[in-house]
């Protein structure tokens, strides 16, 4: 929904000139009328009507994740909630990390590396180190997008390890910045309307990386383990502290239902939601503010081993008040999903069964049968709700919006 304002421009002697593109992403329509019928007393005054519609200023979301950019399942679920499939920009660099759909654009913060692979080798810094990233450029460009201007964003090519020529990004409705440092710089943090941190515990990370890399010839169990261990100090020093700034944290831990489980097939996932965030009402189970422990499997619902266990309660996280919803176990059947969904509240769904529908739509994505998929989908719906609230707010104050 664009906010348009129309006003007349009267010029006495010169004809109406067309305004060239101001480069601010504004679409302008000029109606030219000339006053020819009689009454030319005032020296041929012509009036032009100028209607200018400004592109909506986007809602900016930040996602901190270690699993690569724009490729993660979370992003695909998020863009699917908004509708439309996200794909890399057409006709551009094939190694671009950007994902564009009708409503959403996801950019990878690796594009703001100030040092390419060789540079980092020379300096002796990993990609996790803030010294390898250009936070000034990141701040400038996110600010520009937030104001509704198009940006020329650099591209970091993960295959060659070089910085490629920039690509043009138009401001979308929802702008997601995904990467290792979305909340590291304070200025960028202030621009975010909502921020999420994906916290994977070490055991689960190990299991996932093995699944990802064991098929490769060059890798072995030892190399994968060494790789994780070597990155850990930088990760703990620079990336982990961003947890405290996130509005929502999805924590993935090994299950407690199966003793000594190291396969990592069943997961325990916690959704930690900060209280008091604008336009965000945390999801709860049964009764907001109380502590609940819930096993849905029983007489009404039969689950297979190891079953499902839920917990909900208020807590403190790095000094903030939070509400935590936790799920341990895996979904086996459709009716388990819908049963669970019908008992969760404040999901921001538009119809009954929307969460289940979204989960089924992407049943082939990893995590579709456990808390990772469930909470990622729920966060996606929450972001949609946040977006609609912000837009409604802006529409409620058109004078303010038209000023910009």
């Amino acid at each position, binding site marked *: 929904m664009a906010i348009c304002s129309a006003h007349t421009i009267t010029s006495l002697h010169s004809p109406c000139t067309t305004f060239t593109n101001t480069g601010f992403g504004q679409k302008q329509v000029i109606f030219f009328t000339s006053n020819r019928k009689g009454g030319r007393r005032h020296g041929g005054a012509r009036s032009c009507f100028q209607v200018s519609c400004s592109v909506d200023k986007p809602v900016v979301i930040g996602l901190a994740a270690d699993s690569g950019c724009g*490729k993660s399942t979370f992003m695909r679920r998020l863009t699917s909630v908004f509708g439309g499939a996200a794909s890399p920009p057409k006709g551009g660099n094939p190694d671009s990390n950007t994902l564009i759909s009708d409503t959403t654009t996801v950019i990878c913060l690796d594009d703001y590396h100030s040092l390419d692979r060789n540079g980092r080798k020379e300096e002796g810094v990993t990609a996790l180190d803030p010294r390898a990233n250009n936070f000034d450029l990141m701040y400038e460009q996110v600010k520009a997008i937030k104001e509704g201007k198009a940006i020329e964003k650099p591209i970091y090519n993960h295959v060659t390890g070089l910085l490629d020529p920039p690509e043009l990004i138009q401001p979308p409705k929802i702008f997601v910045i995904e990467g290792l440092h979305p909340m590291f710089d304070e200025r960028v943090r202030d621009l975010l309307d909502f921020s999420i941190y994906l916290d994977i515990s070490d055991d689960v990370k190990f299991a996932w990386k093995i699944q990802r890399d064991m098929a490769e010839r060059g890798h072995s169990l030892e190399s994968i383990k060494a790789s994780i261990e070597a990155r850990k100090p930088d990760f703990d020093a620079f990336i982990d502290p961003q947890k405290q700034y996130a509005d929502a944290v999805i924590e993935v831990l090994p299950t407690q239902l199966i003793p000594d489980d190291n396969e*990592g*097939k069943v997961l325990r996932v916690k959704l930690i939601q900060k209280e008091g965030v604008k336009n965000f009402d945390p999801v709860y189970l049964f009764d907001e503010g109380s502590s609940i422990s819930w096993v849905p499997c029983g007489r009404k619902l039969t689950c297979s081993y190891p079953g499902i266990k839920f917990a909900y309660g208020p807590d403190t996280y790095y000094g903030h008040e939070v509400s935590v919803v936790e799920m341990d176990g895996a979904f086996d059947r459709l009716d388990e999903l819908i049963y669970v969904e019908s008992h969760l509240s404040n999901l921001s769904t538009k119809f009954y069964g929307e969460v289940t529908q979204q989960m089924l739509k992407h049943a082939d994505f990893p995590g579709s049968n456990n808390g990772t998929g469930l909470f990622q989908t729920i966060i996606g719906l929450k972001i949609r709700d946040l977006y609609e609230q912000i837009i409604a707010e802006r529409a409620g104050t058109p004078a303010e919006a038209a000023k910009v």
Partner: protein
Amino acid sequence: MASSSIVSLVYATALPAGAVNGAGQPPSSVRPWCHDRARRQQRLVAAAVKRRYKGTARKEAALAELIERKVAEAMEVCDGHEKEEGCRVAWDEVEEVSQAKAHLRRRLAEAPDDPLEPFCAHNPDAEDCAVVYVDD
């Protein structure tokens, strides 16, 4: 351009190759593959092998070779100097390239069989995409 998938029977140990099952259940067995049991678990896995462009196959091979090289490099640099920054940077490079390979694998797995499909989705007016109805 006939790009139909051909089914080939492939013997595989515990984990299937990424091209087939890139989006399967994420956390899987952590058993070391050199374990005795792995040999007993060798089973026939029917894998649908997609046809690839020469360039794609070359890119895949180049990335795989790059991973091998980087891992060897990292092992060498870290030999004895585990805590040094050189070691950390080397393993970070390995991680970066592994991520790139995983991304490529997934992209290929999700690619439509007909390369004309995505082209026509964006250029319905192109000559190659014209649909002609013949009334006989």
